[in-house]
């Protein structure tokens, strides 16, 4: 069974409650959308991510009140190099949405969402540990899994899989 092609046109997807809510708040915050394999992705401008998360959490129409996961992707050597990914879940509507923030390698930093969901604490620490993304406003941004004196960030693509660095 062939996969249907991904939809990336904002006009077709602006009726989605999360997209509609973000566009109504600040059209510049949404830098792109993608609907692929029945999953919704919204690209959010890096300066708006914390407020966008708070909006979606409190908005009764979308009610994405639960943060499932925070992770990161490294597209080395492409720029912008990093994508920080937030998987949001609505417990009442039983829906998911994925928010993405693109970061360049010169300043891989983004505002922490720990003030919106305290549960983002460990997820963001893990991303900091393994990718070296700085989360500004995080209460305790230290390595989570690797030893404290470890050099480098293992999940970056320029970090070798084998051998000691």
């Amino acid at each position: 069974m062939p996969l249907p092609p991904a939809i990336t046109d904002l006009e077709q997807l602006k009726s989605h409650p999360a997209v509609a809510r973000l566009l109504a708040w600040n059209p510049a915050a949404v830098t792109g959308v993608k609907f692929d394999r029945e999953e919704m992705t919204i690209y959010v401008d890096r300066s708006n991510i914390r407020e966008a998360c708070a909006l979606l959490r409190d908005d009764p129409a979308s009610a994405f009140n639960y943060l499932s996961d925070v992770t990161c992707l490294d597209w080395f050597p492409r720029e912008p190099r990093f994508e920080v990914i937030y998987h949001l879940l609505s417990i009442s509507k039983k829906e998911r949405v994925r928010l993405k923030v693109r970061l360049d390698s010169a300043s891989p930093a983004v505002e922490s969402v720990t003030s919106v969901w305290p549960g983002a604490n460990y997820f963001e620490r893990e991303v900091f540990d393994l990718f070296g993304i700085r989360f500004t406003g995080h209460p305790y941004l230290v390595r989570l899994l690797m030893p404290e004196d470890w050099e480098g960030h293992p999940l970056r693509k320029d970090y070798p899989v084998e051998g000691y660095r």
Partner: protein
Amino acid sequence: MAHLSPTPVLEPAQDRTMILNMGPQHPSTHGVLRVLLEIDGETVVRIMPDIGFLHTGIEKTCEAKFYQQVVPLTDRIDYLCPMTNNLCYVLAVEKLLGLQIPPKAQWMRVMMNELTRINSHLVWLGTHALDIGAMTVFLYCFREREEILKLFEAISGQRMMTSYFRIGGLALEPPLDFFDRVRHFAGYFPDKVDEYENLLTGNPIWGMRTKGVARMTAEDAIALSASGPTLRGSGVDFDLRRDMPYSGYENFKFKVPIAQEGDVFARYMCRVRELRESIGIVKQALEGMPEGPIKADAPGVVLPDREKMKTQMEALIYHFKIITEGFAIPPGEVYQAVESPRGEMGYYVVSDGTAKPYRVHMRAACLANLQTLPTMCTGGLIADVVAAIGSIDIVLGEIDR
């Protein structure tokens, strides 16, 4: 060796408090969890979990493997529920491929998944009761768990690291008497749950150690991304099997046990009731097991049967190509979540169009659940920390990956 130094450093905030180190080698931390406690007499003022002792870099390893080679790695993440991890990963890859799975494989997956849940809950119940001081339950639980491990061995050849689910279906047909053995187990298991409950549920000592201990409200549980029985024990009615069904769970009838109190006893009751619901699902799967193939008809993805390889040239070629080159997946990304015994287990798989995953990320339910520990334990007694750790049912292999 940096972990030998007492970091993260916690300094006593007042003269009357002291720092107590618990773990990583402590029998009630279920592996290698280290907990730093600031205590005032017997009261916990601050608590800070320290993890990472079991970090093996599985996510990085996955990026160097073919898609089908990742399946055995997923067993080793949460070694108490290997089939749930297998299921979550293969569902994610099947979603990336757009692959349809035959009904018999789906039902087998549900049945094995529920046996895995019982297996995992039995280890939890035994060790949790042992932590609080009830030795007998541990022996009883491991007696029944042994039967499940024998079933796993019969179907996959392995007791713990099963790797039984494959992309596109199952590894093998179940052996001839397998369903009879499962039926026998499902027949007597509810009586065994009664036995555990007779020992614990009405026991006044058990009640004193668990009721009103390590409370957490529903708001806190949601804000801290807790899931599974840790979330449902606080009164949030959410279960991925029922609310966002996968792998044919919409065909099964079962209740989602919840409890309102949010204490250790509530989480205990949720899991014990889940044992009964799970065995009910296993019985339904046995009764309605469809006939048919156990693998999808996707020659470039699913390994051919051995018999066909000996007689058909195409099957031999496909086998050779899958083993040596893997199979490419169209670029894209999926997030697939399943309800593991501990909560929301999620796999985020990204494909860049090659035969190896660009990124595999596991959303560990335990990692998020562990964050609830400070909320539960602050202001409580030291002895209750052990009860709280047991009640969130952590597996350090999943937390550290």
